Structures are given as C-alpha cells and as structure tokens.
C-alpha cells in the first residue's frame, strides 16, 4: 500500500518536472508564433492571449512578403542544404566503405586524418577559406557555401557510417564478388541500401547545422541574391527592429518550416541519437 502510494507520488513529481520543463522549452516559441498573427496594439496589451477575431491581423506577414525576399532566401537555403547534404552522404559513404571494407597501408592513419575535423571546428580556418574563395571567384555564390558545408559534414559522417558498414555481413559482399559484381556495384547495390537507417541519421545531424549556420553565409555569401534564410532573417530583423509585427512574422516564417520538418522526422532523429551516436 505505501509502496503504491510512494510510486504514485514519484510519478506525479516526474510529470510535474517534465511538464514544467516542456513549458520552458515551448513557451518562447509559442509567444512568438501567437503574436505574429495579432495587431500591434494587441501584441503589447495582451501578449499571452491567443489571437481573436478582433485582434487577428496579418500585417506583419504583408510587410515581410513585400519588403523581404524570403522566397528567394528559402530557395537558397534549400539548394545549399540539399546539395551539401547529398555530397556529404555520397562522399562520406564512399570513404567510409573504403575505410571499413579494405585493408590497405595507411588505413588507420587515413581514418584518424578524416576524424580530425570532428573535434576541430572548420570556422578556425575562415581567414584562409575566404582567401581561397576570393581567389577562385566563388565569393557570393552558393557553391562556396556548398563546398564548405560538405567539408564540415564529412568527418562525422565518415565516422558514423564506417561504424555501421563494419556490421554489414561479409558473406553478402563475397557472394556478390563470386557473382562477378564490381566493387562499385557491391557498394551501390548491396551495401548502400543496407545502411539506409544510418544514412538517415547522418542526414539529420548534417542538415540542422547547415540550415541554421550564420557565420559562413555572413562571410562568404552576404549578397542579396545568395542570402540564406538564416542570414536573411537576421538582416531583415535588424532593419525592422521597431516594426514588431514584421519581426514576429519573420521569426514565425523562419520557425515554422523547421518545426514541421522536425515533427515529421523527430522519430528518426531521436532513434539516431539513441542508437548510433553513443558508440
């Protein structure tokens, strides 16, 4: 009886702590999104109330769509993220396959070399990266960002993927070799499909920092035509500081797509963190 009561008390306490923290985590996002749909007066008078028919207003979004190039920024972010992600996954999987499948001289050394970038942030090379991009005429192009993010994402991708590729059965690959498949066919048709869950995990880990990065867009591609959403939102909000409707609307536009993607992929992401990353 007392045991049951104490376990009930403990469960209530656990839920109380978790609900409290969930409120802390979600409240700021909630306040921003709710107020983006209100008229200026109501943003200040009743910041915590949901929009009502009287207070509802889209004036902020009108300012954003007429003054900012958010559609273009979205397009830029999407191109950069998707292309860099594809490069990281393809190149990373190929290198991971070479490291985990073949014994060759310098294998361990190559693995360590490629793993350096997990601990040393690429930002520290910014001075020289900018010079390289200036010299090759890539400043203010999306290519510059794609190259940098590919290099940034590769070390962790190779590290995680080679762990997974070691677990692919040798019998399967040897059977493929007996059947006369080339090493390339073995990689693309046998191994890659088997490590798809690992690829998904790596994809999520690679995508979030690319989409959210401010440093490299600010330094390598600050032109209007190559701004990413993160940089675009930062500059837009900087200009419209006093226009609360516009600022809240811009923030909402930046939050909602990421949030929707997260809710779709959260299971994948969480499974990835709880299985692969802890090794």
């Amino acid at each position, binding site marked *: 009886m007392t045991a049951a009561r104490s376990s009930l008390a403990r469960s209530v306490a656990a839920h109380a702590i978790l609900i409290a923290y969930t409120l802390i*985590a979600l409240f*700021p996002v909630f306040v921003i999104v709710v107020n983006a749909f209100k008229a200026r007066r109501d943003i200040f008078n009743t910041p915590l109330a949901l929009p009502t028919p009287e207070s509802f207003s889209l004036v902020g979004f009108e300012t954003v769509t007429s003054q900012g190039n958010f559609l273009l920024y979205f397009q830029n972010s999407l191109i950069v993220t998707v292309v860099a992600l594809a490069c990281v996954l393809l190149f990373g999987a190929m290198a991971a396959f*070479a490291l985990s499948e*073949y014994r060759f001289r310098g294998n361990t050394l190559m693995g360590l070399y490629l793993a350096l970038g997990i601990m040393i942030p690429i930002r520290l090379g910014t001075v020289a990266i900018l010079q390289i991009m200036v010299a090759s005429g890539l400043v203010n192009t999306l290519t510059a960002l794609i190259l*940098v993010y590919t290099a940034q994402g590769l070390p962790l991708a190779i590290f995680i993927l080679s762990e997974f590729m070691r677990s692919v059965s040798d019998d399967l690959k040897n059977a493929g070799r007996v059947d006369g498949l080339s090493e390339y066919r073995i990689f693309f048709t046998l191994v890659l499909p088997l490590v798809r869950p690992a690829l998904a995990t790596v994809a999520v880990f690679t995508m979030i920092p690319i989409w959210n*990065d*401010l*440093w490299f867009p600010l330094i390598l591609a600050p032109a209007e035509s190559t701004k990413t959403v993160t940089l675009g939102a930062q500059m837009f909000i900087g200009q419209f500081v006093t226009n609360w409707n516009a600022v809240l609307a811009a923030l909402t536009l930046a939050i909602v797509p990421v949030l929707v993607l997260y809710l779709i992929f959260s299971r994948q992401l969480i499974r990835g963190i*709880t299985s692969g990353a802890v090794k």
Partner: protein
Amino acid sequence: MAAAAPDEHKPARRWHIAVFLAPAVLVYTAIMIIPLFSTLVQSLFGPEGGQRVFVGLRNFQTLFGDPRWAASFWNALWNNTWFFIIHMLVQNPVGVLLAAILSNPSLRLRGFYRTAIFVPTILSFVIVGFVWKLILSPLWGVAPNMLDAIGLKHLFAPWLGQEGAALTTLALVSVWQFVGIPMMLIYAALLSIPDEVIEAAEIDGVTGAKQFFKIQLPLILPTIGIISILTFVGNFNAFDLIYVSQGAQAGPNGATDILGTLLYRTFFGFQLQQGDPNMGAAIATMMFLIILVGVSIYLFGIQSRMRRYQF
C-alpha cells in the same frame, strides 16, 4: 596522394580504394585542412611596406603585449570561460535530471516530452537570439508580466543591457537551446544499462535516488565526458548567439565579447577599425590551441582513465 599510395604493388586491382576515398579526401583537405594550416601560418605574417612578410611571433607579441589588444583578448577568453562554466553547471545537471526521469520505462507520454524538450535545439541561433531578446525586452513586457503573475516583478531587470548580467543571461539562453543534446545522449546511455544490473541493485535494497547515484551515474560518466568535451568545443567556437543578440560589438561595453566575436571583429573590422587578416589569424590560432589543449586533456587525461563497461 596518400589515398593512392597503398596501390603501389597491385595497381590494376585496387584502384577502387582510391576512387572511393578521393572525393571526400579532396574536399576535406582542400576546404578544411589546408585553410586551417594556412590560417595558422598566416598568424606569423604581417603587413610591411604594403606586402605581407614573415614577422615571426610579432602578432602574438601585439596580442599579449599591447595593452588594448591584451585587454580585449583576456576579456574575451574570460567571458568564454564563464560561458562554458555556466553550461557545465546548468546544462549537464538539468540534462541528467531530465534523462533520469525519462528513462523510467513506466512513465507515460515519454515520446511527447522528448520531442517537445528537443524543439529549441533544432532552431537556429538567429531565431533563439531574437526570440529571447523580445521576451526579455522591457518594452514588450512578457517577462516582467510573467514575473508579476507569480509576485516576483521586482526581480525583473533589463538583463541583456546590464554589464553584469548580460553574459550569464546569454549563457542560460544557450543552455535553454542545447539542453536537449545532453538529455538525449544520457537518456540513450541510461537505456543501454542492462536490466540485470538494476535488478541486482534492487535485490540488494539499493533503490530510488541512491540507486541512481551509486549504480547508474558511474555507468554514464563516459557519456558525461563526451558531452563535456562537445560543449567545450562548441562554446569556444560560439559566435552566432552573441552576434545576433548583442551585435559584433558584443555589448554592453564588451561584456559579452567571446573569442568568436573578437575574431570576427578583428578579421573584418568594425566602424573605424580596419580589418586585419593576420591578427585575425593570430586569434584563430589561439582558439585552435585552446581547443587542442581541451581535447587533449579529455582524450589523454580523462577518457583513457575512465573505465568503460561493456555489456
């Protein structure tokens, strides 16, 4: 190239290894390793008579000898250290607490809590910085009103504008954003502890908080180590949050200046000061050394001494 070297004796048969490695090694070497080393080398050069010439350690002499440079460097380094200390003191304990509660298998709504608490982590610094700037703004009054509701209005102050409070406030905002990562990693580590260990503890009468501190906590120490070093590297490389909420000047009066913002200002210049790539490279080199020392202490001092339990 290193990738092709192994093929020497049987070149015809093993070209595919080089082909598999080449794209990754090329991009990684050209965009990451070479610029990194080139940046380190450039910290030894400086302008003289309109040209960049080798000046040895002069940039570092300026950085540590010139009172203005030295003051801003030590200020940024100390602020950065404080930023890291706050993360270690708040982020890790909160992460451990949340993970410990979540790892209870009989808890309902686990998936919901996990998903919700992780939301801030996926948002960009730009969003996080502005969201908190608005909420803490005395103009809008969301934070003062909420404190008023629980009778603590007198505690409110425009924290982001106060020299004493701004850095700690921003560190807590950063903790708010990233607490999901330690929570998830520790949660995963707790789940990987086999049931037999827990059952054995229960049979011996070790339960509740005592069980957590005596059995689970020692088993997740390696994970806490990994989280600490990830936090260290992330913190000493931070820039975005400060830049977004306080600008490149890292106000008020440099109170929130960390190494990342100092590097940005030095490299690109601001207002009247000219940008200086060589001094920027010198600061990047110092950041590199700090991170290298931190990572080495972790790898050789902590990780190698920690016992890993294989189940």
